[in-house]
């Protein structure tokens, strides 16, 4: 099984090694842009806003879900793609990169402040670099699992990623880490970015399957 897996991957990389190099470079650039944008927002939070949902529900500490379940979902999506659907790896990484770039752009545009009553969230040391404040519009916790829902929309696993996204949407609201508009817009922006990504990939000739 391992041998066939390695053989399969060797074949994929042999066929598409240029695309993989490009993809990895893009992912590193997207992650870097996201980090810079996150640092910028952490130092420039400005306005607090009343929120129809946050005003009703009190802040609950769901740190475990916010940090560990979310990381688990992202790793699961990555591992599922690499192990079960290796041919979709480029697609998932491409959509993630694009989403990170779009999110970095949005968060630096209008400077909102994380709600005061938001419970503090501590990421494990290895992932501390992922934790910023005031990076609000739109919710990355909600949007990133949606990539799995869109990419694997012909498989039943899509329901898992949709449920994950909904769970994360609920968690970021319950913990008051995001305003409700950040969550609401995340679904639309994730979809729009996915369609844009597909369009670019088609233009580049990277999408061979029927979509």
């Amino acid at each position, binding site marked *: 099984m391992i041998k066939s897996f390695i053989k399969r991957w060797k074949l994929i990389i042999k066929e598409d090694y240029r695309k993989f190099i490009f993809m990895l470079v893009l992912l590193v650039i997207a992650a870097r842009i996201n980090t810079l944008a996150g640092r910028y927002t952490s130092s*420039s939070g*400005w*306005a*607090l*806003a*009343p*929120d*129809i*949902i946050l005003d009703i529900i009190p802040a609950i500490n769901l740190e475990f879900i916010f940090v560990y379940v979310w990381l688990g979902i992202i790793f699961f999506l990555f591992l599922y793609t690499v192990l079960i659907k290796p041919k979709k790896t480029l697609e998932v990484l491409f959509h993630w990169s694009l989403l990170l770039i779009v999110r970095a*752009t*949005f968060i*630096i*545009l*209008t*400077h*909102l402040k994380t709600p005061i009553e938001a419970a503090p969230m501590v990421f494990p040391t290895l992932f501390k670099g992922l934790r910023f404040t005031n990076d609000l*519009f*739109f919710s990355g916790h909600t949007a990133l699992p949606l990539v799995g829902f869109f990419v694997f929309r012909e498989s039943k696993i899509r329901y898992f990623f949709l449920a994950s996204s909904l769970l994360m949407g609920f968690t970021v609201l319950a913990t008051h880490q995001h*305003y*409700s*508009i*950040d969550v*609401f*817009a995340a*679904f*639309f*922006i994730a*979809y*729009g*970015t996915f*369609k844009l990504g597909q369009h670019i990939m088609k233009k580049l000739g990277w999408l061979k399957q029927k979509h």
Partner: protein
Amino acid sequence: MVKKRGSIFSTLKNNPLLTLISLILLALAIFISKISIKKTLSIQGIEPARDLILTNFGPYNFPFNYLYLWGPVILIFTYFLYPVFCKREKIFYYLNMFSFLYLTRAFSILLTNLKNPSDAIFPKMIYFPSESNDLLFSGHVGLAFLSYLMFKEDSKIMKTIALIATFLMVITVLALHVHYSIDVFAAFFIVYGIYKIGGAIKIYYDKK
């Protein structure tokens, strides 16, 4: 499917159920939008947010005040007159998409209430309150972009006009500082989503 023949009135008369549903939806969209906008005024945000684009651009009044007032009026007329004269079979599709857009907006503006940019210039409006707090997402940009998406299916010229109108609306609301930049850029994504959902509903009912 819509039966198409005769005048606009006969189209409406030949499709009584669709006409009724579409008009109810439109009335709901207008009514709920008005209530939502009033509500946002009563729960105005605590403080204005700082915005990267607004800090470095404007505010400018002329000619954007005229574009802000008359742009949507011209857009609405064009949006509805085009199917009336050129695509009669799509009149209900156009109408329902418009209602769907404004219902979604009525919901989204209620969620999080930022305060208007402090230096916003609000031209006087007739039907809606001139100074409002309905920020995310921009209805001016939303309507123009929806027109672009709808016309794209049918006419190259109309598509180009709507694209220019979208660009003008973006510049207008940003120049007047009546919207933050996220309101403007999010409008594209949200309207695209609405257009896709509305299109899927139409296909479903057409098959039925």
